[in-house]
């Protein structure tokens, strides 16, 4: 009797162990199931590189190039802002800050990571958007730049915590060796610590960028949502994620519009899959 119970429990544990694989596959399959149907009406090439997104005109025009470029532009902007600041902060926390300040800073970073994106979007709408509007004398502050700044803040917790881990896991002897040879603290950081932690820092940057590409609510609230090919960082844009969030509510189940939004989901899933697998390879390189 006891043996039977143990047998059942262990099988149950094994099945749950496989749950994460099951769900990843399930997500992918259901995206494919609903999304591939769009390619009956538009070729994959025209879908990815078509220049106009008018999903409810007759016939619908389903080209997501403006959305891809919108996502890229915002991601690029957020990366330019968040990488130097995030890596700088990680170095400060890992190498320079005194122990007490270190703990406080880490708690602060965790706090930032915990703020829901819709709250950040709300704050961005109220503080950042009017600021951008008045500084650059624009008709509207809902621009790619506002989105980039806000998203940089969502990428930073990821970048800081993973980069700090990477610096922390560099063997102590490296640092001691450099210092013993007469290098200053900064020379040690710049010439020894950073190169030794480079693969972990790269993974941190990639995961931060992955977070930015997938971000939805804040971006939808402050980038203006104009589905046109962006010409300037000071113009409104629309991202892949915001398109799904904004339009799925109105799309009729089974319509071409509905299929197209799922196809965008496939693109996003593929991007996040590629980023996460590559980052994981970098993280395990050392072992």
């Amino acid at each position: 009797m006891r043996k039977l119970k143990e047998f059942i429990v262990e099988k149950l544990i094994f099945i749950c162990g496989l749950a994460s694989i099951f769900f990843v596959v399930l997500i992918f399959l259901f995206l494919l199931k609903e999304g591939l149907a769009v390619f009956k009406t538009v070729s994959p090439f025209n879908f990815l590189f078509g220049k106009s997104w008018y999903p409810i005109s007759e016939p619908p025009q389903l080209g997501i190039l403006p959305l891809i470029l919108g996502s890229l532009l915002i991601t690029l902007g957020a990366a330019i802002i968040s990488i130097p600041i995030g890596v700088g902060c990680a170095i400060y926390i890992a190498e320079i800050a005194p122990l007490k300040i270190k703990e406080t800073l880490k708690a602060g970073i965790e706090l930032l990571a915990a703020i829901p994106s819709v709250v950040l979007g709300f704050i961005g709408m109220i503080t950042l958007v009017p600021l951008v509007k008045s500084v650059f004398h624009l008709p509207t502050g809902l621009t790619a730049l506002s989105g980039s700044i806000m998203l940089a803040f969502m990428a930073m917790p990821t970048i800081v915590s993973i980069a700090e881990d990477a610096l922390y896991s560099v063997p102590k002897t490296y640092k001691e060796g450099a210092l013993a040879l007469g290098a200053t603290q900064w020379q040690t950081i710049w010439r020894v610590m950073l190169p030794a932690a480079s693969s972990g820092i790269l993974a941190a940057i990639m995961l931060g960028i992955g977070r930015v590409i997938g971000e939805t609510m804040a971006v939808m609230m402050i980038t203006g949502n104009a589905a046109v090919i962006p010409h300037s960082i000071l113009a409104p844009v629309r991202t892949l994620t915001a398109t799904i969030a904004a339009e799925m509510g109105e799309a009729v189940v089974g319509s071409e519009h509905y299929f197209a939004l799922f196809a965008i989901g496939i693109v996003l899933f593929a991007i996040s899959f590629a980023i996460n697998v590559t980052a994981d390879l970098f993280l395990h390189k050392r072992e």
Partner: protein
Amino acid sequence: MRNPYRTQNIAFFFLFLATLLIVVPVGLIVVIIIQKGLPAINWQFLSDIPRQGMRAGGIFPAIVGTIYLVTGAIIFALPIGLLAAIYLSEYSKDNLLNRLIKLAIINLAGVPSVVYGLFGLALFVVFFKFGASILSGSLTLGIMILPVIITTSREALESVPYSFREVSLSLGASKWQTIRHIVLPNAIPGILTGTILGLGRAAGETAPILFTVAAFYLPQLPHSVFDQAMALPYHLYVISTQVPNVDEKIRYGTAFVLLALVLIMNLVAIIIRYKFRKKKKW
């Protein structure tokens, strides 16, 4: 020759500046929301339904909806996540399957939240015909927080010293008895931390509930798991972008309640972790 110490001072100054550039805005965000949101909070705001097209009244249905959704998500995710963590820490061997599971967890954690929304729509709302309901929303959120729960629980289980298991096994206990009576009780604080962090994440997310449960305006409480419901994050989105001329006080008040809910959960998790670290017997 350049003075290396001058270079160091300049470099450290910039690193400090970078840190300030993160910490100061975070502080400002929290301070602004507390300063402007706290005056809006009173009993009526917390206990009344939204009135006059959400321009007056309270946010009670949204609070209740969020509590239902988070509870549902945890009922689904905790057992699966905990058993998965037990598998990874106690049973799995260092082989290809183990590697695949870890990769799947990383990917599950990285899937954009709006893609979870699509998935929930396709599987629960359309395929299983649950409709837009608390059930669909809870299951979607549950799958989303699964990686958080698995990762933190696994860390908690693995931090129980190996000698504890050896003693138990050498006394004749079976593997499951050892896990049930020795490993799990010692890992509970860590598992609790993970669960609370998962709760916080589920409470704050908007995109996964957009098409699976969230009601634009529903001035009554849900009666069953097959009903739609309002939820705090979606309500904040609606009153700040979809409804014109909402009093700023109501927006800040809603943001304050949501932020407070999420931050309190995180704070509790941090405190549990801190106390546990101090009390550790090994």
